[in-house]
């Protein structure tokens, strides 16, 4: 057996056991069908807590605080991934105009909202308000239609993905080993090694009214 598949197998073994998205904790979300889109409203206030002084200080220092939401729509109980999309939100204080700016990028476009207070800006950044998660045509609408849910992986300030060799000298034999070693370590180190803060939840099941 080759070394690489063996390493992948060893590294993936613990993941396979817990890979079912149904096993994630549930957050209540409001799902609406508007036109040809399925919109979701979900609050994740734990992403930036009010007592998280470091996070709040970072916002006030005018650095962008990036929130990366990965939204994956699953058919309940089948492990069938229907669709997925990524929403990126940035929040910071504008030192020029002394206000807070929340920038959102969804489907390739940036939109900005301005807030006078930090709390309002944080609340807006940690809430996916009427966010499109799927097109209606991607979901079934029958009398006994399937249930769906949205898996939400929210990362606060995700680490920039670098190669295992620290961005240098990729491709040599030793570095390939180091790359695989790094991947295994990343898997075992868990989500804390991927971002400042990770919230991984799923929504309550929903279905389209026939």
């Amino acid at each position, binding site marked *: 057996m080759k070394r690489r598949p063996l390493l992948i197998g060893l590294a993936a073994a613990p993941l396979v056991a817990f890979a079912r998205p149904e096993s994630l904790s549930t957050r209540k979300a409001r799902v609406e069908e508007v036109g040809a889109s399925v919109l979701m409203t979900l609050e994740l206030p734990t992403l930036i807590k009010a007592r998280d002084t470091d996070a709040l200080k*970072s916002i006030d220092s005018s650095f962008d605080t990036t929130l990366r939401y990965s939204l994956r729509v699953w058919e309940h109980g089948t492990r069938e991934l229907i669709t997925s999309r990524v929403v990126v939100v940035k929040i910071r204080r504008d030192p*020029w105009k002394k206000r807070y700016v929340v920038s959102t990028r969804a489907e390739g476009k940036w939109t900005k909202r301005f807030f006078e207070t930090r709390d309002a800006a944080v609340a807006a950044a940690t809430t996916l308000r009427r966010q499109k998660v799927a097109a209606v045509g991607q979901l079934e609408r029958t009398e006994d239609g399937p249930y769906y849910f949205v898996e939400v992986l929210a990362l606060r300030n995700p680490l920039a993905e670098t190669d295992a060799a620290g961005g240098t000298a990729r491709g040599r034999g030793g570095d390939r080993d180091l790359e695989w070693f790094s991947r295994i370590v990343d898997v075992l180190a868990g989500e804390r*090694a991927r971002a400042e803060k990770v919230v991984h939840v799923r929504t309550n099941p929903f279905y389209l009214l026939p």
Partner: protein
Amino acid sequence: MAEQQDGMRMGTSFWGRLEVRVIAALALLGTLCVGASAYLVNLAVDYFDARVGDTLVRAQAVAGQVEPFHHALVESQISAYGARTRALALEFALRDGSPQTWLDAAFARESDVVQLRIELPDGRTLARDRESEYPHESFEWFDVAHTVQGADGKTAGTVQAVFRIDPAIDARYQALGSEKRDLGAEQASRDDVERAVERVMAIASGLVLLLSLLAGFAVARATTRKATELSRAMRRVASGDLSVRSRAKGTDELGQLSLAFNDMLDELQGAQERVAYLQRIGAWQEMARRIAHEIKNPLTPILLAVQQLRDKDPGNDARFSAMLRTSTEIVEDEVQALRRMVTSFSQFAKVPEVRTEPVALGRVLDEFERAYGHLTDEDEDDVLTVRRAEPDPQIRGDRQLLKQVLVNLVENAVLSAREAGRSPVNVQVHAEVSPTAVVVYVDDNGPGIPNGRRLAVFEPYETTREQGTGLGLAIVKKIVLDHDGEVWADASPLGGARFAIRLPRLGDD
């Protein structure tokens, strides 16, 4: 059962077994090596973790020190924008020409102003802009307004300037912020990463240890199994069983030892059988010598007495004379038969000691053919064929005794075939040569020897011929054994018996 007895005799405990000790030693060594490696790796990880941690803290501190400079830069830039707007307003109040002329000139001069607007006292508004050049979607704007009074104390107008903020200022600061966040995240996840590295090392070390143990187990088991097999065979030999053989195979030292041990047992068993046979023959020779001596002595007086009786017959009674003549002839015939038997016994008892010398086998065969070719003269159709080996091999032997061997074997073949009614009798003598030995075959077309009697025919006084004494083949075997050779009986391709004699071959040099 024998295995159990062997095991009981060994009396070794579980920990006393070589296999267990070797495996335990390998396990201990493997554990020590892997444990030492893991400990050193852990030390290295801790060392570099501390170094990296210090670097991260210092880097974060550096990044933190840059923050106030940025805010100061922004504030100074805001002040500058305000000052420039106030300067533009004063310049507007002190202008010579029309407001539009001044606006055009000022706007052309201020390249980072996106929009310049003048609100005149009469309510009119004049404006110039570069919005298409610096769109709001791509650039941050900062607007400042300033109202200025004229010399008459009345409002001369309001100048509003919208500045394009240099995007490099924010870009550099955000890049710094990104690096600082990554540093913070790296710092926060250090413990998790360190634990993960330790877990990976533990898993890898465990796998290495497991593989080394399995490999060690396989090697130790293969090795100790051979040693155990050899030990078993040696114990059986020590108890007197020379028929046992070691089943340990392989090309390693233990496999070679096993082969050598089996060869030694083959030699030992052959020597034991040879010695036993020679002892048996020696006993028979001693008995034959005594019998020959005891019988031979009275034969001559008996023969003389019978001759006297026949000579002293007065011849008065013809019937008596005839009866006497018949009786004396019978006695003389029986005495002659006893003499022949005594002669055979004497020959058997007096087989001379072998005196070997280097001799060519072809010479022995030639002399035999010249001297004893008459064996087939009684019937002209009988055939005796003698074929030499090419090239003619050298052996160490006693020519006279070897010829005696051939004579006995050929005589036995001819007589057996004749008794069985074979005609013509066909006897072939030929030799084959191997690198280490010479084999002489004597084949006949007689009745052959049943498989179960092929060993017994060499025992003294074992014969199936009516006229046989059972001593010829015993003499053959004794002479061959005295030459460090061996003889055996087999089936002949001619349909009768085959006798084969293997003798050691001398080197060509």
